[in-house]
């Protein structure tokens, strides 16, 4: 079920009303049970068979969690580590099977010069996200940073909670579980914040991201026919598209969770205002970057080791991050580029922007945006060859810009709204509030304008969210 579909609108209204009017009043256990049921309905809407995988993996981590809890009680650290390792093995093993089997077959076939015969494997939606989320439970239990959850209903409700299930934000068990263990009461402010987040997220997705997507698809879908100028504009447009697409999804997921009384992590913090790659990753897909920091980079040794080793750790972490995004050479290159860029930043002492000069900071923001946009080309293109062709044309074959006036006007409108919002939030965080204005009538008018804009300018029933494919 997609957040930007009509079916979800009906689903959301129904489950929201039932939750607050009935189920949540009947106690925590009933409320959590209800959340488990609606989460599985949400997840299995398109393919109910995938529910078995989700259920199976949740059950495995729940049972392993119980085991780790028992070993912790007996102070059996080694046993707890073994069980934690087993959960990592099962989780990553399943992820590799579903995501990387055919990629591995392709690699072997290309090495031996034979024809690749792909296996008929359906990639379960959201597997990359919920696998990582549940691993935080067994790992943190093993580290002794949280208590074991013995109630299966609470555990399933927290780990299968539907808003972040398909595309994040990747929650931490130690943040999620306590919320599901508490009694919840209707908090008007939280619900209203949730509604606002859903509205903004939907606007960013269907009015901005999908509109930019139309241009990007038209140009990138036919690289040979388009000039370097058009490919350059498409590259910039893709940077905006992926940001609004993923930020929009994360915001909607956060908003939906808030409407049920839960808080999720803020996954984006205006990443294109970052003045370095390091800062970019502290603002982009925060839940994933902190996951990789805590569970890959630091265990590898982080930065508390030899300088060369620290650089290698950084590159390895981003290479794995690239591979996590997709089983293709292009994603590896994308990850590698980010790793290398950050290493270069560190080597040149550019990773911290301490200058107070606005001009210098603006210059660094622009450079960071260019580097990120360059890397996105590899991320977006289906093959390495296509990415190289596009980059080659950008630098060597300028020409007339492909213009679809209607799409471009709507892109401009979306961009202006996005830019204004991000600038205000970045530099004057508590000024010019519209959706959060103190006056009810200002809020109401803003809501109406946003909803009518979505209906008038949105690409409705458009494609899936980009991050679903990961």
């Amino acid at each position, binding site marked *: 079920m997609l957040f930007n*579909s*009509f079916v979800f609108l009906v689903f959301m209204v129904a489950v929201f009303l039932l939750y607050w009017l009935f189920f949540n009043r009947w106690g925590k256990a009933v409320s959590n049970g209800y959340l488990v049921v609606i989460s599985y309905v949400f997840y299995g809407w398109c393919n109910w068979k995938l529910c078995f995988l989700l259920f199976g993996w949740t059950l495995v981590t729940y049972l392993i969690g119980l085991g780790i809890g028992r070993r912790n009680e007996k102070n059996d650290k080694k046993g707890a580590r073994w069980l934690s390792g087993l959960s990592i093995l099962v989780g990553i093993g399943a992820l590799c099977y579903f995501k990387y089997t055919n990629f591995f077959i392709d690699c072997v076939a290309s090495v031996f010069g034979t024809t690749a015969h792909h296996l008929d494997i359906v990639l379960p939606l959201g597997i990359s996200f919920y696998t990582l989320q549940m691993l935080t439970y067994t790992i943190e239990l093993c580290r002794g940073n949280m208590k074991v959850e013995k109630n299966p209903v609470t555990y399933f409700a927290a780990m299968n909670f539907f808003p972040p299930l398909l595309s994040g934000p990747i929650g931490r068990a130690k943040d999620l579980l306590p919320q599901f263990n508490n009694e919840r009461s209707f908090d008007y402010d939280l619900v209203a914040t949730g509604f606002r987040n859903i509205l903004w997220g939907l606007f960013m997705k269907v009015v901005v991201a999908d509109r930019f997507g139309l241009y990007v698809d038209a140009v990138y879908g036919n690289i040979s026919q388009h000039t370097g100028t058009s490919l350059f504009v498409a590259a910039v447009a893709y940077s905006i598209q992926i940001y609004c697409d993923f930020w929009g999804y994360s915001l909607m997921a956060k908003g939906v969770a808030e409407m049920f009384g839960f808080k999720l992590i803020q996954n984006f913090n205006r990443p294109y205002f970052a003045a370095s790659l390091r800062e970019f990753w502290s603002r982009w897909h925060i839940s994933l970057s902190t996951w990789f920091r805590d569970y890959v980079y630091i265990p590898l040794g982080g930065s508390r080791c030899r300088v060369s080793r620290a650089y290698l750790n950084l590159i390895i972490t981003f290479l794995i991050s690239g591979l996590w995004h997709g089983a293709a050479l292009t994603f590896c290159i994308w990850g590698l580029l980010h790793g290398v860029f950050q290493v270069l930043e560190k080597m040149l002492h550019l990773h911290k922007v301490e200058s107070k000069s606005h001009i210098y900071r603006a210059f660094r923001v622009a450079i960071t945006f260019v580097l990120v946009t360059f890397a996105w080309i590899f991320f977006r293109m289906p093959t390495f060859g296509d990415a190289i062709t596009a980059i080659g044309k950008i630098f060597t074959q300028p020409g007339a810009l492909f213009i679809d006036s209607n799409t471009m006007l*709507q892109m401009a409108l979306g961009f202006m709204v996005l830019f204004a919002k991000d600038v205000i939030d970045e530099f004057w965080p508590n000024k010019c509030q519209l959706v959060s204005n103190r006056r009810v009538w200002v809020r109401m008018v803003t809501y*109406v304008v946003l*909803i*009518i804009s979505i*209906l008038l300018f949105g690409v409705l029933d458009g494609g899936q969210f980009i991050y679903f494919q990961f």
Partner: protein
Amino acid sequence: MKKFFIYAAILLALLVAADYGVGRVFKAIDGKLLSYPIDYHNSYEKTMGGGNSEDMIIIGHSRARHHYIPTLIEDSLGLSVVNAAKDGTGFLTQAVLIHGMVQQKAPKYILWEVRPAVFLKADNREIDRLTDLMPFYDTDSLSRVWVQRRSPSEKYKMLSWAYRNNGRFWGRMEQMLTGKEDNGRKGYAPAKPSKKHPEMKRYEYEDNYDPERAALFVDVVNSTRRAGTQLIMAISPQYETSNAYELEETRQFYALTDSLNIPVLDFFYNPEFLDHPEWFKDHTHLNSSGAEHYMEVFIPELKRTIANAKQ
């Protein structure tokens, strides 16, 4: 919770009012645009609303819009002609449009530009472009049926006036600001010649015959006959080679037009055009120079067809 429900009810009431207001504004704009010369953004409204009084109306997608020059046809045939084609539309939209148009105001002739594989099953893009029929949702029953086929929830979404005008705001504004002056092209949109000529390629089209499209075509033919309109099918040149004529959907199209006695003027792989890549903007579209060459060979055939039909 009470506060939440009160505010939700107020918001809902405001939304319904705003949505209705948007609908009224668009209706007024559409009404005004009907008096403007035909162009991309008002061609269907004029056509469906009986706003075209010409003897011949050209229907089709971008190839029709860029390939048929009404003024040249008018000069040769002594008929008034208008090009009401629209980029990106598919057979389904055009068929429903013709069906609705002849019930409002039937022209003497309809020239319908298609491709040989007319009865190829619709892809998502073609279904999506049924949005062009949204303005006629209330007035034309067949439009309503096909718009509802866009998605199971379409009939609920169509309750919103703003949704009915989705994606049409800028186009309307553009035409309001710039489309009042008659450019004299009567709907024809010349494609600029490009420096780079298309390369000859061979395409393998999929065979996916859709009997429902054939049935719709028969419906359209019958409705034009009832209205006293002569339907003429045309296929303009394309710069490629392919398996188009080996496909079931193409065979069915020719068998059906033959049995229904509908003339087909087919220039799809015309050898003269295949020798002139400089007449093409890309492999599917003629440029303005190519369109003029096409009219030179097409108009005599059209003249002959009309003369034969009169006998």
